[in-house]
């Protein structure tokens, strides 16, 4: 499947059998009776999950790129396969190309019809993928094998990921590289403490917008980075959870109606947890009807139904509520459970987001007050709410893009929160050198207040936190092929792989590798084409170089573990000068190099988390050194 369908919106394929009448007429290349392909397919989904009912447009229409779909739906990037592993049965697949469904934006939201579940999973996963591909400026591939030591997957596996909306009867949903897909579970809500659900009602994780985005994000990150799933320090699992949560949360802010409604009920303060009820309630009075009840702010809550049904509390709320004080900063040294720890990172990014939102809307509030308006007394007027919503959603878009792009600026292995901060700042600097609203400062301060620091950075200042920039002309890679935005051919990829591996050995001392320690691999290289704010096209390549040493545990524990060192390179291809194309130059070298202390830290972490003593599974010795989202999300 290549890209014949790239310009589908104006694709006009001539019919093969021309009628006799047409044959007599002279050929007219400008006219056709073919109906143009639509560019988007609108589909009904829940904006949050069924438990929120129909309050403010909990049902919304999401627009995904149009493609021909087989029953399932089965498309180019996702195949929804509705096999229930507990009931050992298939459910009837939905055919979204059925004319009746095309008329109605697909099936209406329903908990009782599995075909709506298939539709929603397809729609939300596709939307998430599109947003990432848009932000990254390139196509995302799915991971097809866990390790280089395993046999390659059949051709085409990297294009399509499987989604199993009712894989098991369990309060769990997870991305599984083994199944090359995402497994969603369903379960009965707690009979004793079901929250807003009916006691004992069936809860479907595949109907939670947040859960679908969260799991899809795990799959995307795993596809981008080969060694990110190895929990080599306390931050790794937490980082994955936080990153996936950030993607889910920022997507909330693209839901216009919810946004406007929330803005009105919080008086523009998007970060408030409680919303005012629809109907007026005197201070101190007890609500008598449902519309007087205050609700939780849905924008900054995650997977509410799942959390309540499983009797599990969201750690996000407590993280967002933790005061940004030296006392609160201590949590980073004590919280080690991945969800709790991840919430600290989410809170930091959201602190920056709300700060920037505040800066950008400050003037609007002043104008409003200057005209005699009072945000504490009355609801916001609709025009103001609309303007605020615009800012909120633009800022969210920007933050999501920075976060997604920051992935490319992370070292290839052993990520820490501090690395992510440096990646965020550098990615933002690279794409938006001028920073009128001080986004970088807001990020930096928010991280600092939560005790997240970058090791090896000489100071907590922007300059010190940017990854070190290579001086122009000091490090160049000859003969690298960038191709065009449609991708590289197999021969071009093989060529680039050879070039990069040779480069790594030749320039090992500059990059910081010891070439004698082990072979240096180039697990990934992605050409990228992005338009800068100045309107120019920037051509660059993002390269991972990774060296894997097998290091014994020693100290009474048999076996070895993979100790990985690596650098991420950002290579730029400048336009030709004097009719000569300059050598591609390395702009950033983002290192995670060998250091005895780091080896010790990784070893200790594997021992402390029990991975060192787990018996390796028979055919895959290193499986124990990878994150298991199945257990992580089951809360074990």
């Amino acid at each position, binding site marked *: 499947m290549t890209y014949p369908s790239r310009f589908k919106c104006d694709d006009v394929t001539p019919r093969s059998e021309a009628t006799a009448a047409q044959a007599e007429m002279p050929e007219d290349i400008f006219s056709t009776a073919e109906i143009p392909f639509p560019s988007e397919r609108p589909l009904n989904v829940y904006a949050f999950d069924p438990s929120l009912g129909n309050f403010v447009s909990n049902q919304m229409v999401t627009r995904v790129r149009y493609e021909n779909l087989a029953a399932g739906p089965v498309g180019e990037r996702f195949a929804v396969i509705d096999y229930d592993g507990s009931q050992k049965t298939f459910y009837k697949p939905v055919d979204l190309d059925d004319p009746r469904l095309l008329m109605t934006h697909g099936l209406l939201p329903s908990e009782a019809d599995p075909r709506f579940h298939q539709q929603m999973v397809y729609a939300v996963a596709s939307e998430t993928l599109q947003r990432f591909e848009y932000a990254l400026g390139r196509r995302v591939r799915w991971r097809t094998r866990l390790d280089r030591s395993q046999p390659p997957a059949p051709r085409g596996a990297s294009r399509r990921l499987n989604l199993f909306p009712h894989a098991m009867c369990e309060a769990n949903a997870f991305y599984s590289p083994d199944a090359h897909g995402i497994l969603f579970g369903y379960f009965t809500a707690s009979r004793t403490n079901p929250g807003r659900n009916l006691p004992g009602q069936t809860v479907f994780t595949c109907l939670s917008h947040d859960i679908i985005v969260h799991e899809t994000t795990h799959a995307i990150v795993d596809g981008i980075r080969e060694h990110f799933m190895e929990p080599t320090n306390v931050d790794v699992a937490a980082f994955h959870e936080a990153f996936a949560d950030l993607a889910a949360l920022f997507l909330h802010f693209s839901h216009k109606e919810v946004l406007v409604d929330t803005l009105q009920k919080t008086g523009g303060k998007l970060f408030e947890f409680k919303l005012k009820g629809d109907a007026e309630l005197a201070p101190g009075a007890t609500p008598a009807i449902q519309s007087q009840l205050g609700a939780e702010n849905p924008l900054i809550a995650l997977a509410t139904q799942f959390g309540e049904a499983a009797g599990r509390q969201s750690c996000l709320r407590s993280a967002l509520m933790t005061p940004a004080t030296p006392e609160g900063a201590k949590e980073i040294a004590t919280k080690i459970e991945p969800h709790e720890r991840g919430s600290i990172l989410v809170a930091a990014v959201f602190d920056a987001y709300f700060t920037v939102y505040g800066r950008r809307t400050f003037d609007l509030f002043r104008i409003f007050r200057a005209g005699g308006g009072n945000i504490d007394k009355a609801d916001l007027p609709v025009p103001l709410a609309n303007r605020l919503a615009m800012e909120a959603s633009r800022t969210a878009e920007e933050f999501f893009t920075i976060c997604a792009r920051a992935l490319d600026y992370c070292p290839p292995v052993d990520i820490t929160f501090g690395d992510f901060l440096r990646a965020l700042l550098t990615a933002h600097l690279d794409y938006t050198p001028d920073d009128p609203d001080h986004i970088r400062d807001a990020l930096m301060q928010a991280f600092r207040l939560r005790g997240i620091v970058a090791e090896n950075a000489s100071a907590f200042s922007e300059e010190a936190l940017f990854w070190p920039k290579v001086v122009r002309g000091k490090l160049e890679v000859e003969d690298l092929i960038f191709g065009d935005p449609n991708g590289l051919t197999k021969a071009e990829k093989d060529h680039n792989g050879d070039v990069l591996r040779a480069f790594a050995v030749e320039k090992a001392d500059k990059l910081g590798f010891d070439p004698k320690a082990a072979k240096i691999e180039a697990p990934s290289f992605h050409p990228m084409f992005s338009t800068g704010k100045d309107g120019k096209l920037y051509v660059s390549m993002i390269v991972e170089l990774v060296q894997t040493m097998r290091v014994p545990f020693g100290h*009474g524990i048999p076996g070895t573990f993979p100790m990985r060192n690596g650098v991420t390179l950002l290579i730029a291809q400048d336009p030709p000068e004097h009719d000569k194309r300059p050598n591609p130059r390395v702009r950033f070298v983002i290192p995670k190099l060998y250091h005895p202390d780091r080896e010790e830290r990784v070893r200790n972490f594997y*021992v402390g988390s029990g991975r060192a003593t787990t018996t390796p599974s028979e055919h895959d010795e290193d499986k124990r050194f990878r994150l298991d989202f199945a257990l992580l999300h089951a809360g074990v």
Partner: protein
Amino acid sequence: MPGRQRSEPSSPPRTRKPAGSGGSVRKRTTPAAKAAPSPTAAAPKAARGLRVRMYRIGFGDFFLLSVPTGGGASHILIDCGVHAKDLGSMRAAVTQMAKDCGNRLALVIMTHRHADHISGFGSCADIFAEIEVERVWMPWFENPDDQKAVAFQASLVAMAGQLGRQFQARLAAKPDPAVEQLLSMAENITGGLGVAGIAANQKALNVLHGGFRNSQPKPDYYKAGDVPTLPAALAAAGLTAEILGPPIDDALIRQMTNKNQQYLAGATEISDQLARLKPFGNAFRGRREDYDDKAFAPYGYDRVKSMLDGAQPDVLAAQAKAADKTLNNQSLVILFSFAGKNLLFAGDAQWGNWENFLYGGAYGTPGHTQLTARARDILGKIDFYKVGHHGSANATPKDAVKAMRIGCVGMCSTQEHAYNEVPRAPLLDALRQRMNDQLARSDQVAAAPDKPANPDAGPLPPAFSTPGQQLFIDYDF
């Protein structure tokens, strides 16, 4: 005896350092000394008469620490339990212990409520009913007045019970040694069901909470940093104690409780469910043929299905392991000091418990990658170490081994093939190296004439002795 002589000459120069830090330890214990009105504790000059006795019962812990006092030896019992690979010697050992202490124990310490640390209190309740006990120490998790702790323990036990039933069902369907170990792990938490349907561990706990001969005062419940109250005679003799674990972490406990309750909610519904949860009406049932063959490309239908089946984790096994670790981490970790000798009893503390003591926070976070000065100081002066968790690798972090004083002495109560890779021979080797080979294993002595020592465990190092030829091993300071 040469081993003992080897350690004696080296002690005078060392006494200086412990004396300094020991002084501060004693200062911290002064309120305790007040609580137990006692004459000013004059530091004893020599540790002669101080003895640790380890009984061989199988896979479990059973230690008696005897301290010389003005009125003869005073005794501290630290745990009394066996779980897997019970050698049947518990009764003989408890009888022996009762004789050793003359039916008087100054202090009973329960490090944590795993069966392999407390079962003896239940199975030999009649013998314990004849023993006078002055004080009882337990981890703070056992405090009946702490609602959080009570709820936590109750849900942990309930969960272990559920897990046990499920593993039993699995075993009934198909014998599997791995599942047997999981079952054993779950039953270690409950103690298994006794005749009256009361969990055996509960019976043992009842004894600890008031089944001794006298009506001893309420047990003391301790956490890291608490100042423990020693019985008057022991305090007077100059014994001091410090509590190094378990740490108190409200958030962690709340989270564990949530998880357990969530699991329990699910489990009860599975067991009483009338039919398997059927999510959709029959009309929605489909067949593989409803899908285009291309839907399963490129893997093909069979492979997709087997990949899907293979991706389901054994959540129950993971739960059992997590519960086991949680309970081990409740262990009281105690440092005793007497006449310049420091003895560390770490229960079964695993990483989470040690982490707090060793690094002062979550390992790997900024500022918590190195041993704290205090941890280095304490480990650098110990003379005796009760090897944690029967010699499992997770229970004695290697940073702790590396910081232990070279030439200290160790005792490890263990039994092979009871628990996944315990004892871990390479860890014991590393400890032996640190200890100049002065590491005793409980299976180096016969439990009974028909239960000989384990030949693979090697001979008992010369620093230790077996006065009774069987059943127990002594270390005399």
